[in-house]
């Protein structure tokens, strides 16, 4: 019999949120006492909280006090975070987006969005440095920003705050307000850049804590604020941008906004769930997936995915088989409700289950029938069914074993998976060489990865729908590029903490030791160790021709594939 080791099962609060920042400055009882004298905490009814999870426990373990100096950036538009902020005191401002005058990406420590010129592109052939991972500069690209602090406490700050205040439209957020709560709960990108105008103290609450504060407070002090915020901002934006709701009158949109329910499903206590889940196997994964709609039940709602991924399953003997998946923007339940409206009684044909964490909208059947299925003179088509984005479902293009593979390995996240047809690939590595040429002589992927049939999904960045790599980046160096949506790393603000590389479930991010232009290893002068930076595929964002790997493949074996696009799946996997 194998030997066993007895340990105490890890608990949720073994590692309080404040320990991430500085273990020597935890949240103290006196801090909590002070917070509890302020709204909304003093308006909360503690009777609903469990004894093992009191309001004080939640604040002690899921919150931390953050101090900012003038110019410090708290969150950036486009960042992904798993926490919300409550302003305890001080001056905090948010940039208000207005056409043509938003703070430039380089000023926020991001990679400048610029394509190479034709000459610069060709010059790569002889100008690329011979030393690996050579960097020409080790300070931010833009002199208007700086870094202070170390590791997880690093702050990116605006050097010339008055210029930002005078040059861009900003609004003060008064003390006592929350921000960042919707993106934390929905796992969606931050929608505005927020920075400190002067010294400010913020209470940062991690996602799980905010969820429980909303769940157990009998007075709904925070829930009311969050739901109002969601209905005022995110819901309207979602409805106005979704093709299904295009052309609806304001009156009908209002009905939808009044009745749509924002829900989150699934758990994530760790930002790296896929890595762990992939090792557990199908049955264990399946059991842990939250059920959203159940096969065979009366269709009470249509479900829209706002963020995250869902699996469609049908019962098969004593188990369940995966027949499709939903990505953001997809909806399920329309066809059943349409059939019911036509007089047939059709239950849900599939179960919908959240793969890991998911947020979405439930719209009740009567509202769907009234607003979307009833004739509307403002809309060109009387039926919404043709414009409901089609989820990926089992078929000739996507046979069931492939579907199971893509879902189980979580490749359905991919918007740009590198799929290599091994029956065509001659292993010439032209793709790797092309990638190296496009990245100063350094390839940004390894031609290796999981294989299904004769297709390999190589270890290159998938540019995920839900990029967990971005969640814990302390400087926002890894971010989505606004124009393309590609996940990229800014060399000028990457501090080499490796959070992104550790969180990436697909081993697509590599930490490399950087050198100067003479090939000398660059060493951090504070700690005397080699400086490392995270590197990954950026889909050749600055190249004129797009992904060099795909362009280089003479045998048409390598394709970058958006796995939410049925047509692309068919083109690649049914060859």
């Amino acid at each position, binding site marked *: 019999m194998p030997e066993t080791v007895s340990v105490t099962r890890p608990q949720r609060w073994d590692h309080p949120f404040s320990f991430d920042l500085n273990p020597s400055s935890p949240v103290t009882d006196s801090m909590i006492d002070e917070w509890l004298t302020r709204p909304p905490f003093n308006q909360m009814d503690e009777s609903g909280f469990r004894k093992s999870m009191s309001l004080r426990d939640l604040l002690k373990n899921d919150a931390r006090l953050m101090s900012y100096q003038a110019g410090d950036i708290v969150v950036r538009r486009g960042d992904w975070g798993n926490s919300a902020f409550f302003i305890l005191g001080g001056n905090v401002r948010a940039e208000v987006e207005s056409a043509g005058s938003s703070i430039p990406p380089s000023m926020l420590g991001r990679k400048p969005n610029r394509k190479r010129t034709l000459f610069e592109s060709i010059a790569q052939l002889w100008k690329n440095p011979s030393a690996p991972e050579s960097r020409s500069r080790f300070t931010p690209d833009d002199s208007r920003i700086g870094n202070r602090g170390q590791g997880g406490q690093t702050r990116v700050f605006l050097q010339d705050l008055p210029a930002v205040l005078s040059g861009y439209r900003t609004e003060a957020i008064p003390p006592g307000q929350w921000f960042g709560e919707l993106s934390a709960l929905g796992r969606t990108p931050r929608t505005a850049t927020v920075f400190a105008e002067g010294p400010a103290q913020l209470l940062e609450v991690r996602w799980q804590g905010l969820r429980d504060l909303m769940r157990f407070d009998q007075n709904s002090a925070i829930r009311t604020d969050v739901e109002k915020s969601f209905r005022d901002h995110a819901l309207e934006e979602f409805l106005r941008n979704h093709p299904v709701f295009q052309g609806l009158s304001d009156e009908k949109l209002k009905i939808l906004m009044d009745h749509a329910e924002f829900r989150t499903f699934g758990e994530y206590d760790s930002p790296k769930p896929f890595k762990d889940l992939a090792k557990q196997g199908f049955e264990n994964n399946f059991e842990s997936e939250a059920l959203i709609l159940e096969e065979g039940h009366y269709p009470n709602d249509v479900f829209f995915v706002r963020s995250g991924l869902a699996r469609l399953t049908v019962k098969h003997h004593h188990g369940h088989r995966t027949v499709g998946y939903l990505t953001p923007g997809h909806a399920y339940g329309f066809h059943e409700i349409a059939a019911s409206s036509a007089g047939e009684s059709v239950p849900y044909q599939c179960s919908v289950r959240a793969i890991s964490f998911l947020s979405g909208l439930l719209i009740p059947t009567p509202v769907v029938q009234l607003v979307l299925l009833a004739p509307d003179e403002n809309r060109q088509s009387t039926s919404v069914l043709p414009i409901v984005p089609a989820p990926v479902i089992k078929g000739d293009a996507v046979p069931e074993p492939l579907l199971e593979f893509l879902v189980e390995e979580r490749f359905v996240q991919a918007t740009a998976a590198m799929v290599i047809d091994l*029956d065509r690939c*001659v292993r010439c590595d032209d793709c790797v060489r092309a990638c190296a040429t496009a990245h100063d002589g350094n390839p940004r992927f390894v031609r*290796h990865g999981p294989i299904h049939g*004769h297709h390999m999904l190589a270890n290159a960045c998938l540019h995920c729908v839900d990029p967990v790599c971005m969640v814990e980046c302390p400087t926002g160096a890894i971010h989505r590029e606004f124009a393309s949506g590609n996940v990229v790393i800014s060399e000028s603000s990457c501090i080499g903490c490796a959070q992104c590389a550790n969180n990436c479930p697909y081993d697509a991010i590599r930490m490399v030791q950087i050198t100067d232009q003479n090939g000398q290893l660059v060493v951090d002068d504070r700690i005397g160790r080699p400086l490392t930076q995270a590197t990954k595929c950026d889909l050749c964002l600055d190249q004129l021709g797009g992904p060099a790997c795909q362009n280089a493949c003479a045998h048409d074996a390598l394709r970058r594939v958006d796995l939410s696009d049925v047509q692309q799946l068919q083109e690649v996997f049914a060859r």
Partner: protein
Amino acid sequence: MTGPQQRRMGWILVGLLVATALGITNHILTASHVRTPYYFGWLLLVMVVFLAAFGVRKKLTFLPPTLIFGGNAANWLRFHIFIGLLSAVVFGHHTGLRLPTGFVETTLAALFLGTFLSGVTGLILSRVIPARLTSRGEEVLFERIPMFRSRLRTEVEELVAAAAEKSGDSALVEFYETHLKEFFSGPKHILEHLIANKRPRRRLLQHAQNCRRFLNEPEHAQLDRITQLIQMKDDLDFHLALQGALKMWLFVHLPLTCGLLIVAVFHLLLVHAFT
């Protein structure tokens, strides 16, 4: 017929049409006393230059396919194959299918035929080998094969040594020394792998099976693992042989292409100098 097959049939049909048109043109021009070898020579040179330009195109992967004549590398390869096969027809018309005379002509003809045949070999290999590679063993990067081979050798040597130490018997050591030492020492049976001959693998597994009756119960487990390692090493050799073949033909094709270009230009100069 599926999409790729339809495309392939389309290329073949166009190729046949062009070849027929070239034949008719040659017939008409020859009947009209036009210097057909001269014009076909120029055409052939243009085709060879275009074919050689594929190597340059492959380096320009960072440029938009729309900016480059012919589009992406995959399109260029299709043209490369098409023009390459057609060049044999033009070569036939240029030479009149006569045997070359003189040093330059002979060298030029040999270089052309060498380049053409190595290209056809490469085409066949690139169509046949990838699917064979997928069907056997783990996908492995060519450059990492020596490292994996070294690991396998270390593991098998440690297993044999541990088994001998534990049992005090040398049956496994003898088996290793007699049948496996050389096999694990480096790449083996390359030719057999290329022609899909599995006899060496079966022979080694048979030796392992024969050895089993001389071992005690604990040594059986070690032999089972050694058997697995034999198969893994054989799969590595298989990948080395096939991936090597996919790379090696280019080491013939590319130098011949360079030589062909140089001698063709020299041939052109001679033609213009002495006519």
